[in-house]
C-alpha cells in the first residue's frame, strides 16, 4: 500500500510525519537536530531513502545532513560553500555595494535522475551543486556573475536563492528564483543564465518593469508542462507558458495577491494553490481566516478552501517553501504555518485537517509519495 512521508523543517528542528495512503492516521517523528534551524529537507526522487537537510544556527552557521534510510538516521556531510573566485559585490539595502557573504542554505533540490547530485540555493544568492551526495559543493558561478549581479539586493528575509526547478524534459534547463533579484533560466545545465522577467511589474522598483530587482517569492511547475510556470511574487500571482519568455498576471479574484507559497496539483496541471497573505506589512491571512485558494483554470478564477481551516482569529504566515503536494490519487496538499501547524488535505484541498498543531514555526514542507 502506498505511504506518504512529510518532511518538515522548523525554526527548532526537523520532523518526519508518516501515514499510509489514506492519510488519516499520522506518526510524528522528531525533533531531529533539535534546537537548530532547518530551512529545508528534501528527498531524492530517484532514491526516496536519500534525504538531504539544511541545518543552521546563529552560533555555528551552516551544517548539512544526509540520511540514507528515509530519515531514521542522519550524518553530517560537507558544509563548505565557497564562492567561485573573488565574490564581488551586490547592492545593499542603502544602495551601496556590499560583499557577497555566504549565510545559509535555503533550498535543496535533488537531481531528477542521480541520487548523488543535489543543488543548493543559498544566501547571499548563489547556486551550488554537489555530485557526491553532499560531501563537496561547487558553485555554478555563471549565475552570480551575471552582468546584473551588482544590482541584486536582499529582500526583508535576506538575499536568498529559494527556488530551484529542474526541467524533467530537458536536463540542461534549470529555473531559479531569488529575492529580490527575480527569476533566471539556464539552458546549458547551469553554466550561463539570463533573467526571464518580461511581464513582471513591481511598483517598489524605480523602474517597475526592470530586468532585475523583482521579489519573486516562489515558482512552481507541473512536470508534464515544463514550459508553464506559476509564480507567487511579492505582490501578484503570475503565469508563463513559454518558459519565462513572458509572464502575465493571473491574480484574478483573489482577496489579496500577496503571499509566499504556490503549488500545482499532481495530476491536474491547470489546478493551482496559493495562500493569500494580507500585505507586505501584515504577514497574516486577511480577516484572520486561513484560506487556501484553488484555481482549476490555471489562475484568474479562484475559490476559497476553508473546510477544516481556522476561520477566525488566525494570524499565522505560510512561508515560501512550506507547501507541497503528493502524487497519490486523490492528490494530497500540505502546508505548514509559522504557528507550528501542518495541515493536510487528502482530497485536493476540499477538506483539511491538522497533522500536528504545535511544532516550532514551520519553514518548509516537502512530501514523498512512497510505493
Amino acid at each position, binding site marked *: 500500500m502506498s505511504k506518504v512521508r512529510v518532511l518538515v523543517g522548523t525554526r527548532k528542528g526537523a520532523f518526519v510525519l508518516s501515514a499510509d495512503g489514506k492519510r488519516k492516521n499520522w506518526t510524528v517523528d522528531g525533533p531531529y537536530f533539535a*534546537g537548530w534551524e532547518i530551512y529545508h529537507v528534501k528527498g531524492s526522487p530517484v532514491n526516496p531513502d536519500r534525504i538531504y537537510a539544511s541545518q543552521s544556527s*546563529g*552560533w*555555528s*552557521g551552516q*551544517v548539512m545532513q544526509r540520511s540514507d534510510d528515509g530519515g531514521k538516521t542522519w550524518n*553530517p556531510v560537507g*558544509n563548505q560553500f*565557497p564562492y567561485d573566485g573573488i565574490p564581488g559585490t551586490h547592492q545593499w539595502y542603502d544602495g551601496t555595494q556590499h560583499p557577497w557573504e555566504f549565510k545559509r542554505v535555503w533550498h535543496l533540490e535533488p537531481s531528477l535522475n542521480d541520487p548523488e547530485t543535489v543543488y543548493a540555493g543559498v544566501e547571499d544568492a548563489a547556486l551550488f551543486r554537489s555530485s557526491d551526495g553532499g560531501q563537496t559543493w561547487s558553485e555554478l558561478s555563471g549565475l552570480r556573475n551575471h552582468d546584473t549581479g551588482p544590482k541584486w539586493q536582499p529582500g526583508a528575509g535576506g538575499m536568498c536563492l529559494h527556488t530551484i526547478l529542474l526541467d524533467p524534459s530537458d536536463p540542461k534547463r534549470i529555473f531559479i528564483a531569488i529575492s529580490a533579484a527575480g527569476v533566471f533560466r539556464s539552458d546549458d545545465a547551469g553554466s550561463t543564465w539570463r533573467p526571464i522577467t518580461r511581464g513582471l511589474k513591481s511598483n517598489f522598483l524605480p523602474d517597475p518593469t526592470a530586468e532585475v530587482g523583482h521579489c519573486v517569492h516562489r515558482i512552481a511547475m507541473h512536470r508534464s508542462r515544463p514550459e508553464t510556470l506559476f509564480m507567487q511574487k511579492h505582490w501578484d500571482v503570475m503565469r508563463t507558458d513559454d518558459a519565462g519568455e513572458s509572464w502575465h498576471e493571473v491574480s484574478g479574484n483573489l482577496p489579496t495577491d500577496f503571499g509566499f507559497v504556490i503549488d500545482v496539483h499532481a495530476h491536474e496541471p491547470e489546478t493551482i494553490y496559493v495562500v493569500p497573505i494580507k500585505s507586505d506589512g501584515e504577514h497574516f491571512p486577511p480577516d484572520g481566516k486561513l484560506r487556501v485558494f484553488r484555481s482549476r483554470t490555471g489562475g484568474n478564477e479562484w475559490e476559497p478552501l476553508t473546510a477544516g481551516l481556522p476561520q477566525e482569529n488566525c494570524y499565522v504566515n505560510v512561508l515560501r517553501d512550506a507547501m507541497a503536494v503528493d502524487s497519490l490519487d486523490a492528490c494530497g496538499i500540505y502546508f505548514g504555518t509559522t504557528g507550528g501547524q501542518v495541515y493536510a488535505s487528502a482530497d485536493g484541498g476540499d477538506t483539511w485537517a491538522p497533522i500536528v498543531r504545535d511544532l516550532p514555526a514551520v519553514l518548509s514542507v516537502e512530501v514523498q509519495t512512497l510505493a
Partner: protein
Amino acid sequence: MIRVVLPSHLRKLVQIEDELTLAVEAPVTQRSVLDALEAAFPALRGTIRDYNTQQRRAFIRFFGCSEDLSHEAPDALLPDKVADGSEPFLIVGAIAGG
C-alpha cells in the same frame, strides 16, 4: 591531554554527552586545540571558526580558567592549567539568537 567542553548544540552534532579529551602537541594554543578538535570531529569544521577566514564565529566564545580568551590571538599560548589538562577549554555559545 587537553580537556574541551563543547556547547550543547555542538555536542548534539557530534553525538557526545560530556567533555572530551584531545592530544595536542605543544605549544598549546587556540589554533592547535581547534585544529586537533576538527581533525577528530570533521563535522565541527566551519561551526566554530569561519571556513574562509579561520576567525572565531561571532557568537562563539572561548573561556578557560575563568577568563574570556575569545579575543586572544589564535597562536597565543593558552593558560598553563588548560595546557596541562587540569582545567578545561570551554567553547561557549554566546547569549544570542533564541
